[in-house]
């Protein structure tokens, strides 16, 4: 069973739909036991960092998520919340990745919205994915690159398109909205 972390962020239904299209059943839950017992956990989200962190604290999800030992996939805001700090309303985040989340400089259109490719792919998450393949991004804040970076995308500047540390994986783009390539990446995660 796949568990999707239930919290006050949008887009959770899209991930559920994507899993159903891959014939995969899932439960949307904020119950620590269900999250710990799941085969895999997906931590999705579209929204604002500070209110999301407040919700996670209030529902005792901070330690639960940090303590998970099953494979976890953060998506978009999920990735940002898994980092140490976000410039979005100066928010302390989970700190699974020691990356900082910064606002894109406004030298080009912000948000970074649309299909973009990535490179320096180094993870089983990208099996069958090529650097010229495009995935769908929508974000105004980005994760700086670090030792955990497993894919780099370029928009205004190079940033982490994906991160990994041990069982924790995270992608800045939306695999659930990235057509066949996104489906491939989700399938790769599900078969870890």
């Amino acid at each position, binding site marked *: 069973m796949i568990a999707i972390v239930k919290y006050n962020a949008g887009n959770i239904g*899209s991930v559920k739909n994507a899993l159903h299209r891959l014939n995969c059943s899932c439960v949307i839950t904020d119950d620590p036991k269900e999250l710990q017992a799941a085969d895999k956990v997906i931590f999705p989200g579209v929204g*604002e960092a500070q209110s999301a962190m407040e919700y996670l604290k209030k529902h005792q999800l901070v330690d639960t998520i940090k303590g998970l030992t099953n494979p976890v996939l953060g998506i978009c805001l999920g990735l940002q919340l898994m980092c140490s700090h976000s410039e979005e309303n100066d928010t302390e985040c989970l700190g699974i990745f020691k990356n900082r989340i910064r606002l894109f400089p406004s030298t080009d259109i912000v948000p970074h919205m649309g299909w973009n490719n990535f490179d320096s792919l180094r993870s089983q998450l990208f099996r069958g994915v090529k650097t010229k393949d495009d995935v769908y991004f929508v974000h105004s804040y980005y994760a700086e690159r670090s030792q955990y970076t497993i894919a780099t995308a370029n928009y205004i500047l190079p940033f982490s398109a994906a991160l990994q540390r041990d069982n924790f994986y995270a992608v800045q783009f939306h695999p659930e909205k990235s057509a066949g390539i996104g489906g491939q990446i989700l399938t790769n995660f599900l078969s870890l």
Partner: protein
Amino acid sequence: MLKKRIIPCLDIKDGRTVKGVNFVDLRDAGDPVALAKTYVEQGADELVFLDITATLENRNARKGMIEKIAAAINIPFTVGGGVRSVEDARMMIQAGADKVSVNSAAVKQPELIAEMAQEFGSQCVVVAVDTKLTGDNWMVYVNGGRNATPHKTLDWCKKVEQLGAGEILLTSMNNDGTKKGFAIDITQAIAAAVNIPVIASGGAGNKEHFKEIFTHSQATGGLAASIFHFGEVSIIDLKHYLKEKGIPIR
């Protein structure tokens, strides 16, 4: 590199695609879900659904339709038509829409843009702007282009950006339906003046028109309806052509 987006638009009335659809390989060309899936397979980067009935009575039918679309397709989509309140937008987002577009209601009550951005984030908020060259000025029109407003298009677009719009869908009424090409001048004027994505709409009649708008304006996407529905331009051919011409395309 960020790619330019090709966006088919489906007009929906009473749950069916209208404006005519002429796809030989579709069993039911009026079914928006079937048509949407076909476009996704052909490589559409995003879809826009405009519900032109959008009355209170068909609210539930509409919710059901958005849910069906969300379950069926794996690319982002915008839903619009008759959005008057944050509650209207919430229903659409909860049903699975990635973005909601507002038009007339935003002109009547601009604070709706700010409220939606606050509630769902700017990335969910598309402001559709219908514009017509009136004398020397591009002006904003509402209610399906029937009513003039006192707003100059450039000023209105700057204002909606300030209020928190995440994207502008700019339709030139002078060009819409002519198949003579997008309105390059006003599209570029808006794209240069705001720092949010601008989608060009109205006037696309062939592949060259997309090349023109992407070459001569900073529009990040091009939207069209009937040329795709009638198969006059296939998305596969269009994207292949634009790539050959050096336009960044998925």
